[in-house]
């Protein structure tokens, strides 16, 4: 029996990358999955097909998590259809693909990073917690980044600060949620081989980044998803408020 047998998991930004891997791994482990996407409908459909191939139920829900009303609508849709949400994986995130200088950047870059990467995570948590409290069981995993731990060599303050803020969500809420059987943890992936990473780093820069990773390669999105799945299971009931780094030794 899988470690998530019978659980219902909402994974934001799961049409590709780490989110898509979470959907597949969690379906393998027995969860029914809500695949949320913003734009990439075809990709979301492919992920959904993979979830079905594990014999699990899947719902595809379009929502831009930087819009609070859309989060509410998404969660309501799932509750109406399936009655509950057991697991929230706050994975949707944004990273600007244009380099910027913080001295001259427009405030919109900062606002977007904070809104999409940090505020959206809290908004999703707010939306799912009432149901989790009622059933006295829940799992929340917030996706952060190794940059929140080691900082940025390039002055990428918007992304780093937004992800450092993400680290604060679990720290801010674990104590309140624990008596209700809800754990909340942060997963901090290192340099992971996804579209986002390849768009931000570009092929020429990837070898420099890989050179400082002791394991000698980028992580796979599945390697992140496996930890997420474990944390969302009953096996991890005593782990809460923690940050778990999946980074091949890039940062300790």
């Amino acid at each position, binding site marked *: 029996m899988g470690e998530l047998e019978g659980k219902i998991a909402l994974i934001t930004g799961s049409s590709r990358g780490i989110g898509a891997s979470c959907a597949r791994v969690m379906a393998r482990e027995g969860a029914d999955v809500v695949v949320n996407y913003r734009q990439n409908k075809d990709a979301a459909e492919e992920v959904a097909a993979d979830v079905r191939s594990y014999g699990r139920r899947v719902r595809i829900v379009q929502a831009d998590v930087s819009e609070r009303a859309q989060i509410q609508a998404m969660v309501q849709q799932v509750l109406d259809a399936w009655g509950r949400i057991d697991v929230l994986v706050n994975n949707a995130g944004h990273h600007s693909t244009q380099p910027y200088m913080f001295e001259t950047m427009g405030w919109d870059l900062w606002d977007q990073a904070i809104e999409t990467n940090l505020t959206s995570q809290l908004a999703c948590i707010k939306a799912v917690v009432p149901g989790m409290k009622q059933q006295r069981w829940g799992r929340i995993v917030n996706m952060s980044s190794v940059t929140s731990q080691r900082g940025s060599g390039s002055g990428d303050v918007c992304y780093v600060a937004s992800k450092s803020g993400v680290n604060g969500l679990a720290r801010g809420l674990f104590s309140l949620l624990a008596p209700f059987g809800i754990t909340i943890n942060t997963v901090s992936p290192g340099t992971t081989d996804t579209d986002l990473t390849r768009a931000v780093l570009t092929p020429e820069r990837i070898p420099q980044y890989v050179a400082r990773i002791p394991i000698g390669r980028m992580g796979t999105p599945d390697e992140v998803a496996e930890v997420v799945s474990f944390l969302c299971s009953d096996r991890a009931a*005593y782990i809460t408020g*923690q940050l778990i780094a999946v980074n091949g030794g890039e940062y300790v």
Partner: protein
Amino acid sequence: MDNELQGRIALITGAGRGIGAACAKVMAKRGADVIINYCHSEQGAEDVAKHVRSLGRRALVVQADVSKPEQVQAMVSQALAEFVRIDILVNNAGRHNHIPIDEMSIEQWYDIIDTNLTSQMLCIKAVIPGMKQQEWGRIVNLAAMAALKGSGSGDVSYSASKAGVLGLTRALFRPLAAHGITINALAPSPIDTDMVSGIAPERLQGYISNTPVGRIGRVDEVAELVSFLSSDRASYITGQVISINGGSAV
């Protein structure tokens, strides 16, 4: 995952009771054959072996004081003779003495350092050659919350030895990474074992009231994390210290 350790061979020190015994049982449930080391808990070790075999896995019971290099060598040789390889090392054997610094003798200090820290180094040294040869290995070192936060009872040798385990982990993750070997440390808060029964009830109640999850951790909960970290699933996690404490020491 049911079979995340399918086909793996795990050596667990101090597996006659407590967290070590739970690791043996959980890892066997998840597919591993196990080498159950004990120092004094012979009956406990045999009981664990019996349980492991009832799950259809192989078990080897090996007595050894893992603070002694020659006994560690003998244990590993015996394990290799039986199983040909060791894929996973769970450095679990360890002890408290609850002695504050002003009462502690130098022998008492060395005793705990040897039992809790030196032993881990000796076991790692013994298993690495085989793991390197096969380019796959998992080492999980049991540290403790006290390694990060100190001990409420002023147990200086325990806290220092467990902090040393973190340093051991950090010293080794880089050189081992190129060989497909991950090494991580766990920092559990007080867990429901014999060791915890040595803690004064008021202090224990103090821990519980400071633990958001509202209870002491269970041995199987630590074992599940050990199992996960010992599997292929955790192939990109190394050099880390993972705390399991019900929220008591964030």
